[in-house]
């Protein structure tokens, strides 16, 4: 099922995310996904996130599909050239994967193989363009595909709380022009910024899912403030988490914060994308608090 169908029906689309392990055993991951994310529309599978080598997104998507869930296949342009990316897209389509998220990808220097050659043959925009090409039955080299071409719900990312909002919107426009169907945002902790962003992004006419992270601790938030681009946790939230460490550790504070953000932003977006970062078990509580 393509999530664009749900957007078209005007539904508030909820997705979550899982990160594959650095290994080949995913029974636990699948179990957790079935248990906590079963009620959610779709589940993203990250692609060597943060340039840390992990089990492939494509393989895990396939396993999620078999387990009855709807995966969103994330592809970055850091590790593979246009040939490999197209090949993987065809593989995904063959497996029955219908939803993708096209990203440029973090630089190799940020991960655990800093000496690796960064590819970036394509970027998020040209990757979207490439997907559209394939959907039309022709590859990027101009060669016709054999048989029915693949069809995807094509997503991309945008950072509404970034400090370079103009450049982000410019890029967003280009992604739309290149064929993007929907957007998932980087984690939002400042509803005002998100609302202001949506005022300007509305003109592109594409559905946007609000990205949320369930914060685990003040320390984690400070780390994100310093190291994760586009993510900013304001001081009052840091204080809230630091106030009662037990509640924070239990996930109660985090869920409350995330729920507040969702509630405030809800009228301005077409869905929410939850990045649980290991706290998949808290997702049901969050959804409950928000009333989904």
């Amino acid at each position, binding site marked *: 099922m393509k999530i664009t169908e749900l957007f078209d029906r005007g539904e508030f689309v909820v997705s979550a995310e899982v990160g594959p392990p650095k290994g080949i055993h995913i029974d636990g991951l699948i179990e957790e996904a079935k248990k906590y994310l079963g009620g959610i529309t779709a589940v993203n599978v990250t692609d060597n996130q943060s340039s840390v080598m992990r089990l492939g997104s494509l393989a895990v998507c396939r396993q999620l599909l078999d387990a009855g869930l709807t995966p969103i296949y994330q592809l970055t342009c850091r590790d593979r050239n*246009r040939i490999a990316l197209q090949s993987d897209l065809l593989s995904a389509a063959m497996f029955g994967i219908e939803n993708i998220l096209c*990203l*440029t*990808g*973090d*630089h190799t*220097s*940020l991960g655990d193989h800093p000496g690796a050659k*960064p590819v*970036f*043959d*394509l*970027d*998020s*925009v*040209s990757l*979207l*363009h490439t997907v559209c090409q394939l959907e039309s039955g022709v590859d*990027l080299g101009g060669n016709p595909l054999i048989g029915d071409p693949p069809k995807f719900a094509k997503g991309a*990312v*945008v*950072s509404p709380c*970034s*400090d*370079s909002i*103009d*450049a*982000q919107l*410019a*890029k967003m*426009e*280009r992604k739309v*022009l*290149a064929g993007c169907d929907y957007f998932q945002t*980087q984690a939002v902790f400042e509803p005002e910024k998100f609302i202001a962003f949506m005022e300007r992004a509305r003109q592109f006419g594409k559905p946007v899912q609000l990205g949320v992270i369930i914060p685990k601790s003040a320390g984690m938030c400070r780390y994100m403030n310093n190291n994760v*681009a*586009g993510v900013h946790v304001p001081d009052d939230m840091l204080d809230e988490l630091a106030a009662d460490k037990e509640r924070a550790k239990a996930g109660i504070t985090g869920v409350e914060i995330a729920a507040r953000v969702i509630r405030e932003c809800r009228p301005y977006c077409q869905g929410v994308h939850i990045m649980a970062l290991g706290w998949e078990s808290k997702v049901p509580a969050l959804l409950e608090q928000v009333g989904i």
Partner: protein
Amino acid sequence: MLITKLKSREDLQSLLPEKVFVLLCNGCKEVSFPEQEIEELISEFLTADKVTGVLTTDYICNPENLSLRLKRRRAMIDEADGVLVFSCGVGVQTVSDLLDDKAVYAGCDTIRLPGFQGVTPLEYDCGQCGECYLNITGGICPVTACSKSLVNGQCGGAQNGRCEVDPNMECGWERIYRRLEAVGRLDAIKCPTQIRNFAIDANKSH
């Protein structure tokens, strides 16, 4: 503009033979050359009786002049098991070509600084991509100003206008956006999707 950095002591110690003839190239010293470190290293080698001779010269990438200058040192070179060259890779390859039957060792690693002519490196660079994007970026090169060489706009990694790879570097695409704004060319944002052609032939003209 090529410059050099001295290889680590461990690297050099492990690969050098008993006796070496040392050749230093000062041709690009005006840009940068690890003169002092090399001098220290050579003193050590001299003390350890490892060196049959030292020649400090310049532009050893010029094979004719290299040949002229090495003529007087032939005996010292013959006496050595190998020739240790402190120069960029072009120099080492030139020496290796000339002294065809002698083991030639590179004492340095080569780095490239932005800029082609002169001896002053530039604060911007040309990636020699062969399909100049400067028309749609207001004159700031996305191939070199962006760490990922993206040609369709910013990635999501910029923080405070700085690149995720090097926080001392401004996000190239933010700079491009500001420049386009300044010269009234924001229309360039609406250009078609750009895809690099990595197979441009250096030899074929249009």
